[in-house]
């Protein structure tokens, strides 16, 4: 299903996404999802990939969408869950685990905030046949919260806490997300970044550097900063 509302191409897809689905997604396309997604971020990655714990469930049987997310959710006295808002966390911090994780989980779609570097797409996501969807805003917590129809299960909540636990959500018309990286590793953020970078020199023209420099402005730690 594709529409052109507000001039931006928008599609609604079922999880698991097929290879054809993935191939059809161009950067900049708006995506909504239906099916099962799971959350996993540093807490889960460390536990599975560094501590050697088996994933609590066969991930590939759930679906192929890994959301870098911690929901605003509460566990009620009767063991049920209340899910309020849902937003993503910045993904670039998880790049170090992604090669192994994609192999282990067979995830083909990573959803998060802010994307990863083009090098990470080329070296990690493209070889794994995976794409990256970014959340919008950031912080469409209420819109995404509406898309969650049920908490199917939650794992490791005692050890990792609500924020780092693995949540499995049944979602409906869940979005909006924007395709940030496609199967070839093209990046929307990179394309926009280059256009913006072209203006930076002019922006800084005439603004002299401060008297005291900082490491980072020179990479040689033997340099004086004055």
């Amino acid at each position, binding site marked *: 299903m594709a529409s052109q509302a507000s001039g931006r191409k928008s599609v609604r897809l079922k999880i698991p996404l097929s290879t054809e689905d993935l191939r059809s997604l161009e950067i900049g396309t708006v995506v909504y999802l239906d099916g099962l997604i799971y959350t996993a971020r540093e807490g889960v990655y460390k536990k599975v990939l560094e501590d050697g714990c088996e994933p609590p469930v066969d991930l590939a049987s759930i679906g192929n969408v890994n959301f870098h997310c911690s929901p605003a959710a509460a566990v009620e006295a009767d063991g049920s869950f209340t899910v309020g808002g849902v937003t993503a966390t910045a993904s670039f911090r998880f790049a170090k685990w992604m090669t192994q994780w994609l192999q282990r989980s067979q995830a083909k779609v990573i959803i998060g905030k802010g*994307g990863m570097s083009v090098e990470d797409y080329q070296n990690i996501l493209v070889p794994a046949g995976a794409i990256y969807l970014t959340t919008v805003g950031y912080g*469409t917590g209420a819109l995404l919260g509406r898309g969650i129809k049920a908490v199917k299960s939650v794992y490791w909540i005692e050890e990792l806490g609500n924020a780092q636990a693995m949540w499995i959500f049944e979602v409906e018309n869940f979005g909006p997300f924007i395709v940030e990286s496609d199967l070839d590793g093209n990046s929307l953020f990179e394309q926009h*970044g280059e256009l*913006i970078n072209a*203006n930076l020199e002019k922006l*800084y023209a005439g603004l002299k550097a401060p008297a*005291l420099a900082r490491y980072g402005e020179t990479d040689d730690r033997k340099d004086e900063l004055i």
Partner: protein
Amino acid sequence: MIDNKIIETAALQIMSNAAIDIPPDYRQGIEDMAKWEEGELSCFVLQTMMDNWNAATEDRRPMCADTGLPRYYLKIGNQARLADGFIGLERALRSATARATHDIPLRPNRVHPLWRTDHNNNVGINAPEIDWSFEPDVDWIDITTVHKGGLFGTDYRMLFPGDGIDGIKRFFLDTLVAFGKRGLACQPAIIGIGLGGSKDTTMVLGKQAACLRVVGNRNPDEKIAELELELKKLGNSIGMGAMGFVGNSMVADCHIEVGFTHTGGMPISVHAFCLSSRRATVRIFADGSCEYRHDPMWFTPYMRRETVEWPVKQAGAKASV
């Protein structure tokens, strides 16, 4: 005499107001920016955020799942009397935080920095932070809560007087460009700038400037007010919009706060609030009645006083808006 139960109930209410309802001044600021945003994608993001605020208010659910680091700013009237004292007030705010985390619900964000222990209630060592301030000649207390993310969008630098306004502009741009890419700063945001004081004061003032002044508010010092507007314009001329896409909406407003500083220095901090600028205030009067609002009215003339004596009788001793 203000009862502690009233304080806790009111604090719970502002936690909910902040998490769910976008402040009207900020909504207006973003609506205005969306009108002149030329970047198509950046504009799409702004429209989606406005849809999100509507969904949050309709559903009574948080507008953003990242609770940030929920915290409080207190203004205590010099004539206010608290039934359970200052310790009671702090206890009420910790209890309200834990209850709000479950009841709204908020994401339990707060963990030990080393052991990553999560109490699942946003309460722990030095959490929530409670900043105290005072107001002469009144018997009410103001409680403001702010829910602000804490990973990106803020930086500090020691500048020197010789670096001048150019140094301020340059560092302002550095911070916006660094954290604006990919939208890590969740812009367009209210940008707060702290100038002067000690290093920690600089950080505190910048944060308060971002989180505790409303869109459209200007510093009472005319020259500082001019600089605020100049920096706002500069930030919006980077060519960057929401999510770091091509556009011109980066700064919803710019607020500067100053503190007298070391004669040799000009420390600066830049803080970005976010597209879910969550703040809410309650004033609790001596009779226990409560008034809820979105403007913290934090920087009163008394807060910005320069003199040894505070001339209590002078006009303008009331909170500025």
